[in-house]
């Protein structure tokens, strides 16, 4: 059963609409085949289509200067969840599959797989000709070693993604057999997470500690030595990289600039070529600056207002629905994100696979809000507290608007701002009434978000610390995990989204994008909805 019905490697990368849109550029993508297409993807960015159009005129060499808000603390993929670590190590170490900028899985160190008839045995064939940066070829034992290491690390922040795997075996040097405990539809997606990146078996003979100071990987870049807490880090092109002719850059210099203003000023002053995490308030002024552009990339992210169902007022479904009706999400987005985000509806962001646009969202309506509250046990309203991470301006603005809007249905809100760390440990102890936070998906499959937000028992977060418990929704989450048929899965996830929208355990406030400012001389830069960017396709003019 080759290819099966899982998101097939390399399928649909260019739609007919894209072809019409890009004209010549689009056909070039088709001719270049799936891999090249994955780098160009279906994103509607003029710069990229220009890059593809002139792909025979790619300029080589140069150093990309990239200012990021957070630096790395470790390069061990099995033991981190921090963005500064992830987006450094993923340039050096690669997994069997990756998610392209359009949000689809594409085969990477694997070329494809065969699935047994009981849906429990996956046999992957490895890409021929792949070498590690030390010149040694990639073999099946490396994959077995790496993924076993990640999944057996109980303290690994993402080892839960490998929970369906019961055994991994090398078959010869070029294929790997995975045994699963049950049919597990998110499997390919799980394999694509950075934590499942492939290292040389036994750390190529080094100690684990030494290995991660200068990791050896199959990725487009290499690192001479890692110094924790340095203010910059330079990656060099890997001469053994398996995509012939890539990377185009000689080197990438990451600079760590945690102050938002500094990052913005550094790109305006021409000191760097790309900055991440642009504050929405700066978008219009940056767009007006000459020589650079602001790019928004859709993210698997949703901002949520979570309500504590262990309290009587929020255990009352009518109260939760009243609050949802009372919050004017388009107004919220307009005020706080300066038009960069989309107003919230379903708890799945639109960029996520199996998002259902037809979910019956409780749209803003003061009349409906009042009607719902009248049916609740608290028809005259009540006083409550809203916990936020006070260090993030967006949350402060959100909280103030929500406070004003809930006032109109007689719910008085007191805002409690705490610093990030105190904020997290407070809501995790259920020491809150309502809080605002964002939820993200680390992989292309929506199972992670669905279980985390809905499966109160096994999801890992008691429905994002809301204690929301709907057995029907939980059963659907489990059914979707075992369903390989894409159409049937879509129907299951549509039902889940429908139930959650009706139960209103949390209000999906908005879907924010990733915001980058990029100099005009940078070509081919794209970010996938998980927040990862591959730099082997980037070149400078």
């Amino acid at each position, binding site marked *: 059963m080759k290819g099966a019905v899982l998101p097939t490697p390399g399928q649909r990368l260019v739609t007919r609409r894209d072809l019409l849109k890009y004209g010549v550029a689009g056909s070039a993508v088709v001719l270049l085949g799936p891999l090249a297409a994955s780098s160009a993807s279906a994103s509607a960015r003029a710069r990229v289509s220009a890059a593809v159009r002139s792909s025979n005129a790619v300029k080589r060499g140069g150093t990309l200067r990239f200012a990021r808000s957070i630096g790395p*603390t470790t390069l061990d993929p099995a033991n981190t969840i*921090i963005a500064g670590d992830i987006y450094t190590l993923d340039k050096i170490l690669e997994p069997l599959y990756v998610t392209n900028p359009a949000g689809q899985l594409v085969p990477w160190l694997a070329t494809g797989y065969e699935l047994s008839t009981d849906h429990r045995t996956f046999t992957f064939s490895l890409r021929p000709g792949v070498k590690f940066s030390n010149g040694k070829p990639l073999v099946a034992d490396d994959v077995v070693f790496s993924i076993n290491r990640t999944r057996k690390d109980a303290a690994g922040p993402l080892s*839960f993604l490998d929970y369906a795997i019961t055994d991994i075996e090398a078959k010869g040097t070029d294929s790997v057999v995975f045994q699963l405990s049950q049919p597990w539809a998110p499997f390919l997606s799980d394999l694509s997470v950075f934590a499942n990146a492939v290292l040389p078996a036994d750390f190529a003979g080094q100690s684990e500690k030494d290995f991660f100071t200068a990791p050896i990987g199959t990725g487009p870049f290499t690192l001479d030595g890692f110094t924790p807490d340095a*203010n910059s880090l330079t990656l060099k092109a890997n001469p053994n990289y398996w995509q012939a002719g890539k990377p185009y850059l000689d080197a990438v210099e990451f600079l760590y*600039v*945690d102050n938002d203003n500094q990052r913005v*000023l550094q790109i305006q*002053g*021409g000191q760097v070529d790309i900055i991440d995490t642009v504050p929405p308030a700066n978008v219009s002024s940056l767009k007006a600056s000459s020589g650079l552009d602001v790019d928004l990339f859709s993210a698997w992210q949703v901002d949520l207002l979570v309500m504590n169902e262990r309290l009587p007022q929020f255990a009352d479904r009518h109260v939760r629905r009243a609050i949802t009706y009372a919050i004017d999400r388009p107004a919220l987005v307009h005020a706080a994100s300066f038009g960069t985000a989309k107003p919230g509806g379903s708890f799945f962001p639109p960029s996520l696979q199996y998002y259902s646009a037809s979910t019956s969202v409780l749209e803003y309506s003061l009349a409906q809000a009042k009607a719902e509250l009248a049916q609740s046990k608290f028809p005259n309203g009540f006083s409550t507290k809203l916990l936020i991470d006070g260090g993030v301006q967006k949350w402060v603005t959100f909280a103030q608007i929500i406070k004003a809007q809930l006032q109109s249905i007689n719910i008085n809100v007191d805002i409690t701002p705490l610093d990030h*760390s105190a904020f997290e440990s407070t809501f995790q102890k259920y020491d809150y009434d309502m809080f605002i936070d964002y939820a993200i998906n680390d992989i292309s499959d929506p199972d992670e978000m669905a279980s985390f937000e809905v499966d109160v028992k096994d999801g890992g977060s008691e429905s994002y610390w809301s204690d929301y418990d709907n057995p029907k929704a939980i059963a659907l989450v489990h059914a979707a995990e075992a369903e390989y048929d894409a159409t049937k899965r879509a129907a299951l996830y549509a039902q889940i989204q429908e139930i959650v929208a009706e139960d209103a355990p949390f209000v999906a406030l908005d879907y924010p994008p990733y915001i980058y400012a990029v100099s005009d001389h940078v070509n081919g830069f794209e970010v996938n909805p998980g927040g990862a960017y591959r730099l082997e396709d980037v070149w400078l003019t």
Partner: protein
Amino acid sequence: MLRYAARRVAAAVLVVFGVTLATFLLMHLEPGDPARAVLGLHATASAVATLRRQWGLNSSLPVQLGHFLSQLVQGNLGKSYIYNVSAASLIGGRVGQTAALVAVATVFAIIFTVPLSALAASRQNGVADHVVRALSVVGLALPAFWFGIVLIEVFAVRLHLLPVGGEGSGFGGHLECLVLPGLTASFAMAPILVRSLRVGMLEVMDAEFIAVARAKGLGELRVLFGHVARNALVPTVTLLGLNIAYLIGSTVIVEQVFNLNGLGSLLLSSILNRDFPVVQATTLVLGAGVVIVNLATDLLAARLDPRIRLR
């Protein structure tokens, strides 16, 4: 003198110990969990508990304090939770940056203070005097984070004369990167110094020995810098010392604005991550720095004015 210094050092040790103790208690009483910062939201409760046990965070506060102090006495500042290297090595990598910033800011402050106060004092109630006094009030009112951004906008983004931020490479590049931060930090202290030195000089100008100096036929500049300034300097030196101490604390803000990797930004990020050992060690070093500067100020004042008896 030696006995005085020894007594001051002993007092300093007590002060630093007090600072350390206060930091320890404040950090541990504040909610927030370093294990969550490292493991993320998806971590299981058992993974978090394992890490906390590993770091000794599960024992009672007095036990943790005892452990911390016994390590400290042995010269061990602890190991960072986040970076997994010793706090001492993190500080070692950053202390130079903060020291350089403080030094450059102090030099700028002196360069502004001496001529401006001499100008104002020599033209008392004249136009120059009023301008200097008005400027010093404006300078006092400028918050560092705002003034720093204005300097960047003008000198780096528009005129491209200096870097926006960061540390540069090589000695020249490094110095270049310290000009704007140094200016920003010096503006927080120069106004006070100008006002103090101006008043001091005015007082000295009325003294009889100045009249004598003038009667001897000395030039006005020579009178101003050789006699007036020298004698008016003592209170300003004391004030300068106090301000350097204050400046060490305000590096937290200036380093943020200019993206300098010094102790201030290390302190801030460690507090946000609840990286307890690094917070402890950094406050210890910053506290010791303040105490040392104060001590040096007192010794210098005594040297400038032999009438000051060190007791």
